[in-house]
């Protein structure tokens, strides 16, 4: 493990400009870093801006969305300063992405091998023969027992878990330094989930890449993450190493998320819930974005939005409960 910083995002703001002059602040002032060999989990409810953050890193934001501010440096290079053409050389090569739906993420008209070869031939200038051999090796690596046959198979011949393995093979084919997995296991059943996540963390260690794991499943976080970023309303509300977060959550939102998890140690009739839903991104409350749902909300929570404050060198929280005054 080299421990170098692979991804460093600073003050990222991705806004969506809606028709009626409203601005949806889908991602607002997000800072995050991912180091080589590290798994960083980005957690939050639906609509909290997790996926938009990942798509912003890949620069795959479509109109009316726009990255209005910030710096995304990948291996020291600011991706926001690159042209579209330069960016196509980064995507799939330095940074790769795995999607939620393995059923639709592969092109149905090409064989699995063909789709792996496409990436290799584009980024590594391999000959057809080399690319094919490498595709077979990659398929073996991600656990296809009959890789020589699987290269010639079409996506419809594979099960969901197998397709996700194929997606991983495509993603790691060019040895990316950063792998973004956007809810990679949500569409899979539980036994397969564990296999896929194990495979991803094995690949992460083997290739020494950074893994940005986007999920809403705290069970996955508990098992695989090194550090956790909790997102709410387009902002990071808490940042902590995994063991601290689960033992001692600081932000009321994180507490709420953890209380909603079933546990074998607690004997409770009902699981905790967080009342309400995430407000739409163009209608956030005036003060703290969680204030409308927060059980501890104070007067000033409705007035101004707190800053993300460091509690110690590895923890930070965005809440007035932890300010000195």
């Amino acid at each position, binding site marked *: 493990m080299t421990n170098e910083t692979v991804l460093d995002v600073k003050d990222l703001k991705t806004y969506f400009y809606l028709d009626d002059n409203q601005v949806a602040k889908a991602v607002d002032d997000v800072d995050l870093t991912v180091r080589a060999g590290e798994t960083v989990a980005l957690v939050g409810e639906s609509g909290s801006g997790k996926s938009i953050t990942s798509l912003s890193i890949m620069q795959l934001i479509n109109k009316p969305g726009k990255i209005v501010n910030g710096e995304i440096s990948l291996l020291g290079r600011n991706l926001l300063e690159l042209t579209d053409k330069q960016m*196509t050389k980064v995507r799939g090569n330095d940074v790769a992405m795995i999607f939620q739906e393995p059923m639709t993420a592969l092109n149905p008209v090409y064989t699995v091998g063909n789709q792996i070869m496409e990436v290799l031939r584009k980024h590594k200038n391999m000959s057809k023969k080399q690319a094919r051999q490498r595709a077979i090796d990659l398929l073996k690596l991600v656990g296809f027992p009959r890789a*020589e046959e699987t290269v010639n198979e079409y996506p419809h011949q594979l099960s969901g878990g197998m397709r996700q393995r194929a997606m991983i093979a495509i993603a790691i084919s060019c040895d990316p330094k950063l792998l973004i997995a956007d809810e990679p296991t949500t569409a899979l059943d539980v036994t397969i989930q564990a296999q896929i996540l194990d495979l991803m963390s094995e690949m992460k260690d083997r290739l020494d890449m950074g893994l940005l794991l986007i999920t809403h499943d705290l069970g996955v976080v508990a098992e695989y993450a090194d550090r956790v970023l909790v997102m709410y309303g387009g902002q990071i509300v808490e940042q902590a190493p995994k063991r601290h977060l689960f033992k001692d959550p600081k932000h009321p939102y994180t507490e709420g998320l953890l209380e909603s998890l079933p546990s074998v140690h607690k004997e409770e009739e009902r699981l905790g819930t967080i009342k309400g839903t995430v407000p739409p991104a163009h209608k956030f409350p005036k003060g703290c974005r969680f204030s409308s749902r927060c059980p501890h909300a104070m007067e000033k929570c409705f007035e101004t939005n707190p800053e993300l404050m460091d509690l110690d060198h590895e923890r930070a929280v965005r809440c007035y409960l932890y300010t000195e005054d």
Partner: protein
Amino acid sequence: MEIETLKTPNTNPEYSEQEGKSKSPYQLALRRFMKNKLAVIGVITMVIIIVMSFSAPLLTDHNPTQTNMLMIEQPPSSEHILGTDGSGRDNWARLLYGSRVSLVVGFSAMFFTLIIGVILGSLSGYYKGFVDSLIMRATDLVLALPFLVLALTVMSLVENITVTLFVTIIALVSWPTLTRIIRGSFLSLREQEFVLGAKAIGASDMRIVFRHMIPNAIGPIVVNATLMVAIMIIAEAGLSFIGMGIPQPQPTWGNMLNEALSVRILRHHWYTWIPPGVCILVTVLAINFIGDGLRDAFDPKSNQR
């Protein structure tokens, strides 16, 4: 790099044989197509018609444009299988050579329309926004023009109508339908995750459109292109019938029918107009069967059959 060490030689000697095992979606569609009897009959009919039109010189010794004033409106005989027309030209020869024009018009107009339709439709569906509005307003404009009136106007303005000109004219008024269909498929395809996936591996726009989207839209494209051939053949026949299509003496099925404008011919000389009429009917029917067969074959819901 660790992956290199995992490299193992391809130890499977039967490798090439196994390639046949995986059926691509196209092969699956072909298999479903072959199960459709009517469609297969349509294909066989089309093959026969195409072969006959190519081998026209072998099937007749007569020149289809050679007039013979001594042999006007002859009934069928061993010399003239289908008799002769009002200018003494051999009907059988005209029927064979006429199929060439009808087919050339049908297929080339289809290709022309297809090229315009695929380019404009994919631009429109892929980029949306301003490009889309521009192209869609253009299709609205062309769709608002009445085909027949426009064709008749152009035909009567131009003195010497050639096949190329004719094809160009009917293609220029027929592209909007195909453009809209392709735009429709692209609008749904562009939201598919594999398109995002292709972007995420660094594919350029051109590559996404040509490699990832068009092959997935091939079903509607092929079906509509096929049906377009039939429409084009009918358009040619219709315009030639009223004397506004390909001019004499070049034989086409349509202008052979033109003779039947006279009631005398219609009543007493069936051998002049029935054969080209039947040829048009059979060809168009065969193409429509093929089109229907293709539509069923590409329809994912027909997988169960």
